[in-house]
């Protein structure tokens, strides 16, 4: 990890959290579908990042978002779960010796790999968020519906953002 990577990631953190807190927090479709675009930051952290550091970053990001959302602990827990799924999925699907891409972005890994990766991670994150927020099983189907619809919305925005940056790089 050189200083350029670190700088880019810090910049990305600020931009994504700013957009999430001041723009997307006010946005939802029929109170059912809310996007959480900030997870993209954790998704595209570099491959070489140590596990402990990854967990600390995920924890900190979640805590920051929680303080803006007044939901202490919910997003923190979800981000930690997301980080764990990320580690599992990457260790199963990527052969690190034969591969030296810096970060798991759409441009580096291809559409198929990235979309599966994103769906899995985002689903786990949203599942934890919505069920911790509701904190009871009596609204199960409603909460699950909200969760799935939000996953679709977030995935759409994540892929959109990735496509924009992907194109810019190849030019």
């Amino acid at each position, binding site marked *: 990890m050189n200083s350029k990577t670190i700088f880019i990631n810090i910049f990305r953190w600020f931009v994504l959290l700013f957009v999430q807190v*001041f723009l997307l*927090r*006010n946005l*939802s479709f029929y*109170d059912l579908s*809310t996007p959480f675009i900030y997870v993209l930051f954790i998704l595209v952290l570099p491959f070489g990042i140590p*596990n*402990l550091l990854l*967990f600390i970053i*995920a*924890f900190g990001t*979640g*805590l920051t978002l*929680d*303080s*803006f*959302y*007044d*939901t*202490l*602990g*919910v997003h*923190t*827990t*979800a981000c*930690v*779960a997301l*980080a*764990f799924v990320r*580690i*599992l999925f990457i*260790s199963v699907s990527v052969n690190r010796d034969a591969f030296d891409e810096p970060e798991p972005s759409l441009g580096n890994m291809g559409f198929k790999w990235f979309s599966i990766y994103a769906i899995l991670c985002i689903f786990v994150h949203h599942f934890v968020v*919505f069920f*911790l*927020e*509701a*904190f009871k099983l*009596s*609204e199960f189907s*409603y909460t699950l519906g909200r969760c799935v619809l939000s996953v679709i919305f977030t995935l759409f925005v994540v892929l959109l953002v990735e496509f924009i940056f992907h194109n810019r790089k190849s030019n």
Partner: protein
Amino acid sequence: MRNLWIFISRYNAFFFFIIFFAVGIILTLKNNVFQRSVTLNSTNEVVGSAYERLNVLKRYLNLGQVNDSLATENAKLKTELISLKNIDSSKTIIVKDTVNQQQYTLLSAKVIKNSVTQRNNIITINRGSDDGIVKDMAVISPNKGVVGFILNVSPHLATIRSLLHKETLISVNLKKNNAFGSLVWGDGNFDFRKAYVKEIPNHFKVNVGDTIVTSGAGGFPKGIEVGKISKTKISTGDSFMTLEINLFNDFSTLQYVYIIKNRLAEEQKVLEIQTPNEQ
């Protein structure tokens, strides 16, 4: 011992996950139970001032709407003023001076952060303990309708547990026959324009369009209009019925709120502690 160490470091991701996940869950649970001891929310200096700055811009965009509602309120107050001034004084009227005895006083506050899309919605306002606000004071909206209760207080800011929160419960009446019920939000309906009134005994007759008002218990003055009944036939299978109501106030466009200071709150609390609880 060495083998154990190798085992842990090989599967370090899993152990880190357990540790951090547990901390996260503990934070969530703590936040649910001890709301007041938490400072990492929008009464916090940094977070609060960020919202306040952004809100300057947002308020500007909504000026038109706010003007309209203020004008309506002005008109209403003027009408009242005129009717009060034009009392026929040829008759003898006993005027009871209640200025010093007034039980409830209102304090206006600006909303600097609001949400309607989450399961548990919290509102932040720009008044705090310096203005005499304490926890659990009732909050109403300028035109009609209730907003919620004060949750956390810092010197200049405070958060409100809005009606759109799973722990908020407000005691209400049917206006026409004073049947008691409690107003809640949620349980399958998450539209911020609707809420439920529960625990109204089955023998009362209710119609669609009846008005619901606050009952006077639990912080709110008696008779604040909350909403109109939109659906009555919600069967719960026991001797109580559940009504669906349309709220009078729109939480998504809330700009100003009034906090209700109850002069007798302290006195009432002391008295109720002395009296054994028989509810």
